[in-house]
């Protein structure tokens, strides 16, 4: 039930956008909006995952870890380095706090 339901709603949501719009040329202005959607959505995902705990805003060990990971990604462009540093720093901060 849980698995079937989640699979169904996910598939439906992923199908709607491409079905609604496609096979036609869209104005440049629309493309300008689309090009900016990735930064908007990704930034929102990052802050809600790192700075919120349920419906509360909360700074925690994971906030420190994600910040450290972000620095690694920024300096080295390594995604794997970023997530590993994030996990290690989070674990360390959690261990000493």
């Amino acid at each position: 039930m849980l698995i079937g339901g989640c699979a169904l709603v996910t598939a439906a949501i992923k199908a709607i956008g491409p079905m609604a719009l496609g096979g036609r040329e869209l104005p440049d202005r629309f493309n300008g909006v689309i090009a900016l959607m990735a930064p908007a959505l990704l930034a929102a995902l990052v802050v809600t995952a790192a700075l919120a705990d349920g419906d509360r805003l909360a700074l925690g060990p994971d906030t420190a870890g994600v910040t450290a990971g972000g620095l690694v990604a920024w300096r080295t462009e390594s995604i794997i380095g970023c997530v590993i540093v994030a996990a290690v720093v989070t674990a360390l901060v959690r261990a000493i706090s």
Partner: protein
Amino acid sequence: MSVGAQRDQHTSTFADGVRAGIPFAVAGGLLSISFGVVAQDAGLSAVAAIVMSAVVFAGSAQFAAVAIIAQGGTVGAAVAAAALVNSRFLPMGVALGPSLPGGAAARAAQGQTVVDASWALASRDDGSFDRMILFGSSAIQYVAWTGGTVVGAIWGDKLGDPETLGLDAIYPAFFLALLLVEIKSRRALGVAALGALIALALVPFAPPGVPVLVASLASLVGLHRSAR
């Protein structure tokens, strides 16, 4: 070759997509190990956790649904939470649509391959998408996501608590790395900041998933003056 250089080529192949997706697949694999552990703590069997990763293949929705089950919520509430968390795939799909060939059914089928990292990798600066990058990077991430869940579900009890290992930081760090790749202009930086502010402002009031969906409206800044 950097990820950015790769996706600017307009004749990408499926293999290019697979290559571009490898770092994200490794990171996603680590994350899915923790999903395998968390799902069992919530009462799912190892097989159920693996099947869920294989058929749903949407990390944040899976974590959200399982968290609600763990808190004693109903299946309906869990599915609703998964739908809300996945609601960001609506604007992503709208963005992707014009770049997909074929009729509505064919486009809907191709749209199933969208996950956050592959969608972001496939997006070009002009608002169009490179679908081979999308397919290839999703394929390798699917293998890693399902494989990682198998590892977590079967051997997770030997790993210990995912929080002690800091595995919960992998998910936001993963998206932060993706975000940094996307920020190529002051305008993109401004939109990212606006999206983050909108999401944070809504967190105390809106159900999970809605803040991220509404944050996509920050991209409407692109309507203003020169869109590129």
